[in-house]
């Protein structure tokens, strides 16, 4: 069994045909992941007992002659901001270095009910704040395609694990691009579903009105399968949607003839790098498949970064107030009063980027500034969402770049926070609108760096998004495209 290139369907076929048992898959996947992990540092820690126990349950089911679940025996990596009962969940933060959650996120429960094997937890920017995974308190992750470069972020570990083959699929979280951008940098598929499509219960809150859980996979079909399992209403998350979950794999028939795609002119004007020409070639491929491509306007794009960094930091400053040294974080020693204990614990525990965002969020919510910043940003958010609504009256999907450039070098941007924020421009608009969007591999630069193409559709239009991504993936031999 070639653990590094297995798909969900291959695992299932192997299990059903009794060529191997889930316990063997778990053992081999763990052995391979532990051996390969030092190359990237994608995983922070492994959960062998849990993976093996889940595998044994799958094997028992199959031995009983029962139909195995849709993710039977599939090794999964989980971003360390998603809580796992009994397995350390650090959020990439010193504050939660020893935190062992007493419950599972709903997405984790659903994965395991479907037969998945949780291999371990992946590194990420502290509390998912960052675009490079360099803000983790536990060291950076290296890009499997180029070890001197970042994997993107904040879900860099999950993207790297899937690209490296140390997991078949992975869960990440996305608030402003944290799934799509690392997927693009590492050359895998990364999906941010409609806001509310996947329950956020057990996802450590960063910006609650923008947070999503979504899958990483090496193929569109695998991503579609995982989303089908984790999507759906969950009473534990009041914002999770009631809308029925279709079998997304049914949409993967390769037929996109006559589909109308929009190319936002605002996204292309600044795109001069090699990433831009790869996206243009990708669009040409979609045209050849029979899609009708036209230019569209998303006129408020230029205001998206400003809007996002008001709303996301305001919500974060409130959400991160809970890390105060009382209930689950480590506590700074020797504080005379409660107020000192809070200040010392948080001052010593948070890394620079978290502090910066807490400060910005507290500032924009502070007396006298609320209307000028937070309320203003919420209004502009409505305009950005309206841009997409108008676009989707004209087109079935929007095709766009994911990032203005491919993976950058470790350390290259750490000293310029605004430049790092500005690089999120193409992913943040979709996040603000709450629409489904994904990154699908679109080729490699001459240096061999992966570049992803983004596909965005209307609310709950995931099937359309997967259809386009899958048809595109089938064309395979894009210039510069390499396996895994």
């Amino acid at each position, binding site marked *: 069994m070639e653990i590094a290139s297995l798909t969900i369907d291959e695992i299932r076929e192997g299990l059903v045909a009794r060529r191997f048992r889930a316990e063997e898959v778990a053992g081999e996947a763990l052995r391979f992941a532990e051996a390969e992990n030092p190359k990237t540092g994608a995983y922070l820690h492994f959960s062998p007992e849990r993976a093996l126990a889940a595998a044994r349950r799958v094997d028992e089911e199959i031995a009983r002659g029962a139909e195995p679940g849709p993710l039977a025996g599939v090794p999964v990596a989980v971003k360390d901001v998603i809580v796992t009962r009994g397995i350390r969940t650090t959020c990439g933060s010193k504050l939660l270095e020893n935190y062992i959650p007493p419950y599972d996120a709903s997405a984790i429960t659903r994965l395991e009910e479907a037969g998945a094997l949780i291999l371990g937890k992946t590194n990420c920017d502290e509390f998912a704040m960052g675009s490079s995974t360099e803000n983790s308190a536990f060291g950076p992750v290296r890009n499997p395609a180029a070890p001197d470069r970042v994997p993107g972020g904040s879900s860099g570990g999950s993207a790297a694990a899937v690209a490296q083959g140390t997991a078949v699929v992975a869960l990440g979280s996305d608030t402003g691009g944290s799934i799509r951008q690392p997927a693009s940098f590492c050359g895998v598929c990364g999906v941010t579903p409609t806001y509310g499509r996947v329950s956020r219960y057990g996802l450590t809150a960063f910006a609650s009105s923008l947070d999503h859980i979504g899958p990483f996979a090496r193929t569109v079909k695998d991503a579609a399968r995982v989303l089908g399992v984790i999507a759906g209403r969950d009473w534990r998350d009041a914002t999770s949607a009631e809308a029925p979950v279709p079998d997304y794999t049914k949409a993967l028939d390769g037929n996109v003839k006559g589909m109308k795609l929009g190319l936002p002119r605002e996204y292309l004007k600044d795109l001069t790098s090699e990433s831009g020409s790869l996206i243009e070639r990708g669009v040409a491929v979609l045209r050849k498949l029979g899609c009708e491509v036209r230019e569209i306007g998303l006129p408020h794009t230029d205001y998206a970064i400003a809007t996002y*960094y008001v709303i996301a930091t305001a919500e974060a400053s409130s959400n991160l107030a809970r890390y105060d040294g009382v209930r689950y974080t480590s506590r700074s020693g020797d504080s005379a009063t409660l107020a000192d204990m809070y200040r010392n614990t948080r001052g010593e525990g948070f890394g620079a980027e978290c502090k910066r965002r807490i400060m910005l969020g507290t500032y924009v919510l502070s007396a006298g500034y609320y209307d000028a910043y937070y309320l*203003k940003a919420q209004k502009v958010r409505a305009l950005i969402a309206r841009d997409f609504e108008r676009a989707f009256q004209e087109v079935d999907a929007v095709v766009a770049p994911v990032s203005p450039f491919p993976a950058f070098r470790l350390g290259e941007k750490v000293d310029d926070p*605004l430049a790092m924020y500005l690089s999120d421009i193409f992913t943040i608009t979709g996040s603000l609108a709450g629409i489904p969007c994904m990154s699908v591999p679109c080729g490699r630069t001459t240096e061999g760096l992966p570049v992803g193409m983004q596909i965005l559709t209307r609310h709950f239009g995931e099937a359309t998004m997967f259809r386009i991504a899958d048809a595109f993936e089938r064309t395979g031999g894009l210039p510069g495209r390499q396996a895994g």
Partner: protein
Amino acid sequence: MKITEQEVRYVAGLANLRLGEAEVARFRVDLDQILEHIGKLNELDTEGVAPMSQVLFDADATATLRPDAIVPPLGSQAALANAPEPGAGYFKVPKVIER
């Protein structure tokens, strides 16, 4: 200049963050740059635009209600398991009010 060091210290106090002097100086510069960029929002006339505080989609008025069923809570033992200083079934903290 959008923000002074004094304001940075004030905001850090609101956020319960102890900052060193070097951090105060650094964050003043960083926040200044970011706030300068955010000032861009004022170019837009948003008169009459309803603020978007959530992503909304069509659903029944009761769609966000959970079933009225009793669900067992975590229990105090599990809830206290990660506390830096649990004691007698409570979270212990340093003195709040001087007598």
